[in-house]
């Protein structure tokens, strides 16, 4: 217990890598024979919004819980804000804020009381507390409701209280676990406005999400499947790497379908052809060039296309492409 009574601000960071706010090495957790998270190496930089994507059961929440100190990894190391989460949990925890997926404050306390309680747990200096809480409630536009009983609030307001609580000790690192699950689209936008505002002030945000329109607002994305971190890149970088170029959709009449496919396979500007439904999706280096040139070429070969147009590759495409839906092999039995 002596270890835990140390003043966190006086514990020196283990390794001084100031720009890494989250640094894991071969972080692994096993539940019995089941490897839920498998040798994950993450390096999230200060001031980044880092999005964490993956299908249900990929190990996103488990990863985030380990990073927050809620679960202890069975192997590997975790450094958060420069502190070793396993060896210096109190110091590490002081520097992070966490907004869980499920509302987890006290329903019978007033908004203000909830924030005051957590302010105290994080040992925010007494003289600063009132001003801090006021500032956070103002940011979340909750100040006028500060004496409301939390349990009586609407879902959206609860989420805002939850975010205000995660921020009240002004952590340099914020963990969000699907912060907008079950929140209407308008409020989702409001939340992302908050997140960008927080980021502006130098806070690093690690966010689990299912929504691709949210993922695209992140600086970098990590893609997880079956406990493994498949890829880390910017949203554009991910598209480029996974899809391998830009995309063009081409519709032809069914009678020409086989002939067209043959033609496209030998057409130098097209890197890849994927027949999808009634159309072909072409992966190309430059979509504009293809849209301009291809119809003419096909026309000459008497395979007049019905329609052609460049498509924006969405993260959904990336996601679907990367996540293969075969049997889960993590269960060793």
């Amino acid at each position: 217990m002596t270890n835990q009574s140390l003043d966190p601000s006086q514990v020196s960071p283990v390794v001084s890598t100031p720009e890494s706010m989250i640094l894991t090495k071969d972080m692994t957790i096993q539940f019995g024979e089941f490897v839920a998270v498998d040798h994950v190496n993450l390096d999230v930089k200060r001031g980044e919004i880092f999005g964490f994507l993956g299908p249900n059961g990929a190990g996103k929440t488990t990863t985030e819980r380990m990073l927050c100190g809620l679960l202890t990894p069975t192997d590997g190391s975790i450094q958060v804000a420069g502190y070793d989460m396993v060896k210096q949990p109190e110091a590490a925890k002081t520097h992070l804020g966490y907004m869980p997926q499920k509302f987890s404050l006290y329903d019978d306390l007033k908004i203000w009381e909830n924030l005051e309680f957590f302010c105290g747990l994080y040992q925010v200096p007494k003289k600063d507390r009132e001003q801090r809480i006021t500032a956070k409630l103002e940011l979340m536009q909750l100040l006028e409701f500060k004496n409301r009983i939390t349990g009586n609030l609407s879902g959206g307001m609860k989420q805002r209280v939850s975010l205000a609580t995660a921020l009240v000790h002004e952590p340099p690192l914020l963990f969000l676990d699907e912060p907008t699950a079950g929140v209407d689209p308008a409020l989702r936008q409001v939340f992302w406005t908050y997140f960008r505002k927080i980021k502006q002030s130098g806070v690093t945000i690690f966010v689990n999400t299912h929504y691709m329109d949210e993922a695209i607002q992140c600086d970098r994305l990590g893609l997880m499947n079956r406990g493994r971190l498949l890829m880390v890149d910017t949203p554009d970088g991910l598209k480029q790497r996974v899809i391998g170029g830009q995309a063009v959709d081409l519709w032809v009449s069914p009678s020409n379908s086989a002939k067209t496919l043959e033609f496209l396979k030998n057409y130098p500007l097209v890197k890849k052809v994927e027949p999808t439904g009634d159309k072909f999706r072409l992966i190309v280096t430059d979509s504009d060039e293809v849209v301009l040139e291809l119809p003419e070429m096909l026309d000459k070969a008497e395979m007049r296309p019905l329609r052609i147009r460049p498509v924006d590759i969405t993260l959904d495409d990336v996601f679907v492409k990367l996540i293969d839906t075969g049997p889960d092999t993590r269960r060793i039995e």
Partner: protein
Amino acid sequence: MNTERIYLVIKKEITLLFRSKGLIFTTLVLPCLITLIVGFAFTGNIKNVPIIVINEDKGHGDLNYGLVLTNQLERSDQLDVKYFGNWLPIQNGIDLIRNGKYSALVFIPQDFTNRLLLGKAYIQVYVDGSDPVVGYTSSSAIVTVVSQLGSKGAVYVSPDFLFNTNVGVASSSIQLNQLRFVIPGQVGVTIAASLTALSASTIVAERERGSFEQLLVSPISGAELLMGKILYHVLLVGLVNIVSILFVVIVFLDVQIVGNLMLVFLMLFLYAIASTGFGVLISVISKSQIEAAEIAIFSLTIQVWLSGIVYPIRSMPLLLRPVAYALPLTYLGDGLRALMIRGSDFATVQNDFIAIIIYTVVMYALAVHFFSKRID
């Protein structure tokens, strides 16, 4: 340990308690109310036990001691006599007991007066043994009345417990109606029930509510959180319960505490901490509030029956005795009986104090231990 965090947990719990009116009643009012109710149920004698009197006594001249005895039985508050003179056969009387209409039968034989005049007489008493409490009460009431006839000569009574061979020979000295002998155990059980049941849900409720995660990502340690929870239960609920229960016992139930009241209080206070520690341990190891409630109720039942407050430990099978000595109520019951009834000094109950303190420390250490494990 950071004392401010502990203080904040206590403050939070108190705020939550006062926001929930139902909880205020069950935690602060119910325990002393239960003591009051149990006290009144026990207080005074068991009254108006219906009995049959068959009097075949032929008397001696004008003298008929059978009638005298019947009159005196009728005068007893505890008994409600149905007089059958000499026309009801004993077997029919016993059938009436079997049917549950009467609890006892007094049979006065025809030579009762004559024999008494010679110095030695007998009466026959049959008691319904299926309810030992009522059985003992009626037989002891009958024996008491009969003994008042003693100046005329010796009357021998042999109560026969029907339907229950284990009750054996009833001793006329058994006095179940004496509340003060029941109170030490009753107070202990009430304190244990109140604090164990309440604290058994404290951590698991946070877990079910979801607030547990928010607590665990904060820098509060398990030791701090559990200490805050225990102190809240003991300092608020425990103190209110102990003071109100002792008040009810002394003022309303008129039970005299022979020994040192401060020692009684101190012992109950330590026992409250022990019960809370046990409750918090249950809370840490159970997965749902229902599971916690079941463990609490089950363990309380074991405490009540095995701690020697109902049944002497010395009479238990050898195998069960270690269990009895592992229960804190065993020491509280022993200590309170010594302090409240026998008026013993501290030296006598010293070991009981030590046992309760050891139990408390073990409970807290186990709770902290399992708590850190249970985060995973």
